[in-house]
């Protein structure tokens, strides 16, 4: 049954941690445990609130990665030091995000990871810079999050950049999606002309839509965006929006959705008999998750979306995905869980090279990262540019075939052949 989450009983550990937190709040330092060194990573995600679903996925991905690193012997360059995860919940609120970042640092976190939504992530950036704690953004798309820090360092207002991001930036989503559109049409030997862009008017949707339109303006492809139809998220009714789309006589519908709006949009497209060559999304949630497939079934078949995706040609990915499926109660190992998983490994790799947990050394090590063992689909090794972003973090075009999301483009990432145009019903 979808919607079940892993259980986490209140354990002695939780109580101990609670007591430690209580003492720590008052500012009394606790004696460190006299065991093998432990490196604490604060993983802060929106596990409650409107983004609870991806937030919990991130937390589980990070948890599994920490277990994997420890099982393989921990950080060997630091005497087998184990990683320990201190988790936080931003509730998707920036003020809570900031407080949680401070709290996990207070409990000993030497590195931060998080936090999915750009508002909370932006609120955590000053904490990282103020407290000098390296902060790896595993997921968050707003370009300014890292760009602002790079600018401050360049202008001398801040000494060191502590914030890095291993995720495609909002602007890169769009340009790549436009490229994929053109390539897919060429590969299939058809020439659709009219594309209707439909998107959810929230932070993610608006940003992705703008990126797509900017990429389109720059690339000047043979196809044309003939109408742009945003809707308020979450929507209660999309019948008029779909009528408008239909009136534009589209060859392709390009939707940017969230799970709730996808559940409204796709059946509506079918009901109003909007005949198109295909539904190709520039990249959004809602079009591939197990929960969505369970609800939408056939309406999702042949739908494509350009999302950050795991590299399933890597056998390690398969194994982790199976584990994740079991532990999450039947969910797909996707963008959220995947990038959090890789994030921990990138941090571990940096620690191996830094050989210490000193903030500046670790930040420097992160900057010099050249990591090739990531589970996500990258266009090269994980590296960080002058803004602190990973230019090789890219999206992959996936398609729902046989009620399963599979990578279909670019060719080197494809596990199955893409089906386009979609067969007539």
């Amino acid at each position: 049954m979808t919607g079940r989450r892993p259980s986490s009983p209140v354990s002695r550990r939780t109580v101990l941690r609670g007591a430690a937190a209580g003492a720590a709040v008052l500012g009394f330092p606790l004696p460190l445990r006299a065991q093998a060194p432990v490196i604490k990573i604060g993983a802060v995600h929106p596990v409650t609130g409107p983004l609870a679903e991806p937030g919990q996925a991130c937390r589980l991905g990070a948890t599994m990665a920490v277990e994997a690193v420890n099982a393989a012997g921990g950080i060997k360059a630091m005497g087998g030091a184990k990683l320990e995860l201190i988790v936080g919940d931003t509730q998707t609120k920036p003020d809570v995000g900031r407080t949680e970042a401070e709290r996990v640092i207070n409990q000993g976190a030497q590195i931060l990871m998080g936090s999915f939504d750009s508002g909370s992530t932006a609120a955590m950036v000053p904490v990282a810079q103020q407290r000098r704690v390296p902060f790896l953004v595993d997921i968050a798309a707003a370009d300014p999050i890292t760009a602002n820090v790079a600018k401050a360092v360049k202008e001398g207002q801040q000494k060191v950049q502590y914030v890095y991001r291993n995720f495609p930036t909002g602007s890169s989503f769009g340009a790549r999606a436009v490229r994929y559109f053109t390539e897919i049409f060429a590969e299939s030997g058809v020439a659709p002309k009219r594309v209707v862009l439909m998107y959810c008017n929230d932070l993610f949707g608006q940003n992705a839509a703008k990126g797509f339109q900017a990429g389109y303006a720059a690339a000047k492809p043979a196809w044309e965006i003939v109408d742009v139809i945003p809707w308020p998220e979450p929507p209660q009714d999309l019948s008029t929006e779909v009528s408008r789309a239909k009136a534009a006589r589209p060859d392709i519908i390009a939707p940017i959705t969230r799970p709730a709006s996808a559940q409204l949009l796709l059946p509506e497209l079918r009901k109003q008999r909007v005949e198109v060559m295909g539904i190709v999304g520039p990249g959004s949630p809602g079009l591939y998750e197990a929960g969505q497939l369970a609800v939408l079934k056939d309406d999702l078949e042949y739908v494509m979306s350009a999302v950050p995706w795991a590299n399933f040609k890597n056998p390690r990915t398969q194994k982790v995905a199976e584990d994740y499926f079991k532990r999450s109660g039947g969910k797909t190992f996707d963008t959220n869980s995947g990038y959090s998983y890789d994030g921990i490994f990138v941090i571990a790799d940096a620690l191996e090279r830094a050989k210490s947990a000193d903030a500046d050394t670790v930040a420097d090590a992160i900057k010099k990262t050249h990591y090739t063992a990531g589970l996500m689909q990258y266009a090269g090794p994980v590296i960080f540019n002058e803004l602190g972003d990973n230019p090789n973090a890219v999206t992959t075009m996936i398609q729902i075939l046989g009620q399963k999301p599979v990578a279909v483009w670019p060719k080197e990432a494809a596990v199955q052949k893409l089906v386009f145009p979609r067969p007539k019903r």
Partner: protein
Amino acid sequence: MTVPRVAALVVVLALAALPAVLSSYAVTVFIFIFFYAYLGQAWNLVGGYAGQLSAGHAAFVGLGAYTAAMLSMTLGLTPWVGMFVGGALAAALGALIAYLGFRFGLRGFYFVLLTVAFAEIGRIVALNTDAVGGALGLYITFTGNPRQFQFQDNRAYYYVALVMMLAATALVAALERRRFGEYLKAIREDENACEALGVDTFRYKLLAMVLSSFLTGVGGTFYAYYLFSLQPNAVFGIPLSVEIMIRPIVGGAGTALGPVLGSFILSPLGELSRVYLSQGAWSGLHLIVYGVLLIVVVLFFPQGAYPTLLKLGGSMSRSSPKPPHRI
């Protein structure tokens, strides 16, 4: 009267000395206690004393925050000045809402809805205006430069927030003793009687709203320069309006110490319940606790914590309001 004064002084001195012994995390918790107490105190003027409930005060936070941030980002105007420009714009919006509401005789729930409508419109406009970043919002570069109303040390924010809260409370306490405060309280108790007696209720309610919205707008700048990003849903949204209203109501609406007490009760409670109860399968349990607490307070301490404490203390304070009898 001097005993409370000495007590107040001791408390203020203690608060001023705390950052020396607290962890940065605890300092952050206090910063939010002070900040939300400040916003609640601003709300208290119109919602508590004048009795005109507003559930849309986030609109003023949003307007003030976006104004100061935009002025800084496009004109390089320091937020120390920008905050007053933001406050002035927020006051203008407050005047508009108050004028429309009171001139057209909206009271009680109808006025509440008017404020909500304006806040929602503000949110939708900000969401759809590319010039202010649309849904993505504005992102402020962290430089730690005090001239840009930013500080490298968290403790500096603590003192700023503390001063804001104390200043607002002192202002409200002073107004409470003057004729302005008495008029507001009278209007809250029975507006019709006031009008019958020839009091210009419209003027006083308008003034209360303008002052309230100005202060709230100034607070918006603090929000922007402590959290470094502004999104329409967060900064104009109903959840923020609720956070603003809750503290004075729980602490004692219409009393000078109510919002402060309310903030000292609710913020740590929210913090504790999130830290201890938000694990895995129980995500959301802490908000259930929050909700139950609200219900308990409303049922058993309807005047708010402060007047209840006073009653328990046995002293009769003239700032303790009687609930008006409503039919």
